């Protein structure tokens, strides 16, 4: 039997690392999807999920570094990754552009993440076979 044709996913992460399991479940799912020959069209960080994009996260060396693991995964598979601008600004996640606009002293979001609006979520949803929401379990 032939394997089924490849399909595509949009993944929305709404739980923060070190507070929920959402980023790790999403990563394991995304890796399995790609191993099976499917495509991940977009990773969209929303609500508390935007904390996954923080460049400043510095977990203890004997714990998984979820922000780093996600960055490596996104870069190695060249997956478009978006941090929702409204969620990010309220929660103190800024790229260089937003940092200048709000006259802050630095930035904690860089590539591979882009800060953008919900249009990215909607567009990737419309272009994907399935959109999955990785919410906190609490």
């Amino acid at each position: 039997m032939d394997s089924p044709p490849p399909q595509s996913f949009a993944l929305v992460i709404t739980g923060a690392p070190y507070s929920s399991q959402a980023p790790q479940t999403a990563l394991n799912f995304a890796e399995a999807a790609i191993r099976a020959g499917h495509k991940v069209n977009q990773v969209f960080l929303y609500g508390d999920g935007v904390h996954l994009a923080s460049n400043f996260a510095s977990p203890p060396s004997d714990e998984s570094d979820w922000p780093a693991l996600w960055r490596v995964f996104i870069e190695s598979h060249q997956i478009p990754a978006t941090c929702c601008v409204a969620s990010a600004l309220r929660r103190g996640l800024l790229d260089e552009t937003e940092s200048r606009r709000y006259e802050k002293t630095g930035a904690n979001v860089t590539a591979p993440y882009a800060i953008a609006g919900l249009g990215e979520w909607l567009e990737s949803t419309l272009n994907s076979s399935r959109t999955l929401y990785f919410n906190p379990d609490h």
Partner: protein
Amino acid sequence: MTDRRFLFVIDTAPYGHWKGREILDMAFSAAAFDQPAALLFTHAGVNWLRSGQLPDAVQQKSVSKNLSAAMLFGLEAIYVCQESLDHFGIGKPDPGLELVVLASTSDLEARFTDVVRL
């Protein structure tokens, strides 16, 4: 790409939690991009619909203006679960809102391709 129909479910209480606001933003965004989209308020989420809310008291913004303009924004409908209204003692929800009150929500979700909870 098949035609999509979005149902955004708000089941969390207002003000103590940002999820309700965030799912509203998604709903308005979907509608703004001309996607068929509706809202469902259920369980503790029906407390968003009580009349006489004064969120200034907790230094927050009201969403009732946004909700009352939902149809203008292109949302198809705002559904509410009757049982949840009864449970929370909401005899008459905010009269400024066009609500479709449902005795049962169990068949509603089947009419949408994308059911979104946060």
